[in-house]
């Protein structure tokens, strides 16, 4: 039987074999961490510490300045040594708190809640908010906002996104294999917060061990179903995942809650459980360090603020052939110009690409109108035409072709035989017409 999926998409080689079998290891504690004050979509945090101040693990160092915002906590115990700008994954300089690690791993006072499932939904939501949890699949949207749907948008389904459709990445995969019960508890907390009876865990079928473990954990749980999905990029995009699992179609320009669905990433679910159970803020996450440019690919539990350089060193260092370092996956990740960039809440992977793995973007030809991109576009757009309009400067015309529905998955550029930078042209047009 065909597994559920969506229309369109592509099958890039997934190269997950490099790190899929490697259990999550604790990354060495860095001598200092650089914790950006803005690791989420929304208002940046206000710094709450001073240079010279001693902090412990889990201490608040940045407080939110709006509803759509998330607090930031220290991931080490030690002393604040600098408040300075550091590069983020997108290459911009953002304010950050630099903390020197005293190696004592002292925790701040955390509030343990063995009976967390008895807490009122509002209390649980407050715990998620205070823990600074954001969408850990990469979108980094503050989670408590997603868990506060307006009254006129009733939610009846929660989906845990275990698709992990980006090639190479295995962080969510390992979490599902190693901590299935915790991930499932996270789902139950989300369902309780939203008052929802139906929960799903969507996993691509290239992770049979994760499917098995999650099914085992979910057996006997009423209303929770583990769904095996076809392996296809971008299966993990919210709208595609919702379509595959519930057959509901999020309206163009709309949000999942418009069709009564809230989607949370596997890592986010685990963080939600830990926040509600142990009062633990989001100060560490699993990062897949992979690619043929790194000696021993693997999955590391890394403290937020750890420079990427130290994660690469923890995996044996670079081979002699790296050409590019990408944060995230190869389809939507960001290439880095420095290895000083710190791990943030949305950093799912560090991909060190060798010359052979990486496709150079360079010369491209005319569109031959083969329609490959139209067939592959998960949003049903006509990327070929959009790219031509954008290339020729007809930006306004792109609106008639629903350019704003594009979420820039890059599938069009991937399939183009003329090697046209289609999604790049689309980004250009989008940024210009939004002005």
């Amino acid at each position, binding site marked *: 039987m065909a597994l559920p999926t969506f*229309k369109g998409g592509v099958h890039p080689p997934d190269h997950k074999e490099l790190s899929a079998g490697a259990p999550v290891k604790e990354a060495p504690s860095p001598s200092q961490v650089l914790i950006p004050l803005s690791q989420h979509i929304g208002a940046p945090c206000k710094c709450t510490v001073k240079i010279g101040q001693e902090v412990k693990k889990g201490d608040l160092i940045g407080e939110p300045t709006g509803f759509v915002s998330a607090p930031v906590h220290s991931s080490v115990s030690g002393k604040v040594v600098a408040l300075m700008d550091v590069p983020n994954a997108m*290459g911009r300089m953002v304010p950050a708190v630099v903390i020197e690690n005293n190696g004592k791993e002292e925790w701040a006072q955390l509030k343990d809640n063995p009976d967390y499932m008895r807490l009122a939904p509002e209390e649980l939501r407050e715990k998620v908010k205070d823990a600074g949890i954001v969408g850990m699949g990469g979108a980094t949207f503050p989670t408590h906002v997603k868990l506060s749907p307006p009254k006129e948008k009733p939610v009846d389904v929660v989906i845990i996104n275990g698709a992990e459709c980006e*090639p190479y990445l295995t962080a969510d995969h390992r979490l599902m294999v190693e901590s299935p019960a915790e991930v499932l508890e996270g789902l139950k907390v989300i369902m309780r917060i939203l008052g929802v009876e139906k929960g799903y865990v969507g996993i691509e079928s290239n992770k049979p061990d994760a499917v098995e473990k999650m099914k085992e954990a979910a057996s006997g749980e009423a209303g929770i179903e583990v769904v095996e999905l076809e392996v296809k990029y971008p299966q993990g995009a919210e*709208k595609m995942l919702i*379509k595959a699992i519930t057959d509901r*179609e*999020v*309206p*163009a*320009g*709309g949000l999942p809650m418009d069709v009564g669905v809230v989607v949370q990433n596997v890592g986010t679910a685990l963080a939600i459980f830990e926040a509600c159970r142990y009062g633990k803020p989001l100060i560490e996450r699993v990062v897949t360090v992979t690619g043929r440019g790194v000696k021993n690919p693997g999955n590391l539990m890394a403290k937020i603020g750890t420079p990427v350089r130290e994660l690469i060193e923890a995996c044996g260092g670079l081979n002699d052939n*790296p*050409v*590019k*370092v*990408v944060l*995230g996956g*190869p*389809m*939507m*990740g960001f*290439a*880095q*110009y*420095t290895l000083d960039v710190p791990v943030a809440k949305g950093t799912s992977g560090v*991909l060190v*690409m060798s*010359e052979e*793995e*990486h*496709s150079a*973007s360079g010369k491209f*030809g*005319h*569109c*031959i*109108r*083969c*329609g490959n991109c*139209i067939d592959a576009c*998960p*949003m*049903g*757009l*006509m990327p*070929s*035409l959009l790219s031509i309009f954008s290339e020729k400067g007809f930006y306004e015309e792109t609106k008639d*072709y*629903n350019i704003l*529905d594009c979420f820039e998955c*890059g599938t069009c*550029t*991937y*399939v*183009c*035989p*003329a*090697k046209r930078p289609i*999604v790049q042209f689309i*980004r250009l047009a989008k940024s210009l017409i939004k002005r």
Partner: protein
Amino acid sequence: MAVAKKEQELLVTVSPHIRSDETVGRIMWTVSLSLLPAFVFGVYYFGPKAVYVTALCIVGSLFSEWLVQKMTGREVTLGDGSAFLTGLLLGMNMPASAPFYIPLVSSFVAVAITKQLFGGIGYNIFNPALIGRAFALITWPRAMTSWTEPTAAFVGLDAKTTATPLGLLKEGGMQKLVEVFGDKASLYTDLLLGHRAGSLGETSVIALLVGGAFLLYKRYITWHIPVSFLGTVAVLAWAFGGKGGLFTGDPLLHLLSGGLMLGAIFMATDYVTCPSTRLGQVVFGIGCGVLTILIRLKAGYPEGVMFAILLMNCFAPMIDRNLKSKVFGLKKEARK
């Protein structure tokens, strides 16, 4: 690209960082390969002249591409196989008896004028090979419709005629056609195998179907245009093709003859000159079918595939504009 020896040499580009290994060249050369069975049959059936005519078309096409690209200071792209494919298709659309200047001049019209002067690959409105052939047909109507007897390879078979089956049908009706081929069964068999007069690459339906199946398997074409095109021709031929009133026509005869198979599988499916969406392609195919039958049954020419495709080429951009792909999540919102 050099390996980044130092951190400072790391490459920074925007996503996606990986690409499929598909290229324009691979597509064009694969389509050329898929024409091989039909071409080989043409050579076997019409003799060395078929090679000669086709070679002239290919050389003319490559030269025209090179010339215009040199003259306009653009990059020379002979390696992408596009000009080669145009030449091959043009050659397969010629009578094997064409004198040397026809292939040369038509290939210049096809590649230099129809394609390069409009901006090169991707920007031509009309199918280059078909414009080349249309130009030849109008300029040298006699030479382009004199179908010589095939070489001795099939002595004893009913291939002596110097008119195409559709020509015979137009002149003398079904009766005459059956008379020439012996009986109805051998008429269909000969048409299927390709034992008939015609352009050198169009005659063998079976060889063209093999090539088409290969392209479908490689996913370089989809069923939409060939099926809607052929289906429309079949239905309309059945409905209006008979002398005895409605629904007395012979759809099989129309499907197996003329340039229909070559046109429906290899010419109408040209990416550049057909619509990009599947629905648009079905509309395009139906339009091609309607025009083909209209010309075959009611116009002066016995065959209409070429003009039908060329006329529909004009409409391809309009079809694309009016039959956009279905945007995810848009229908529900529109319904509100």
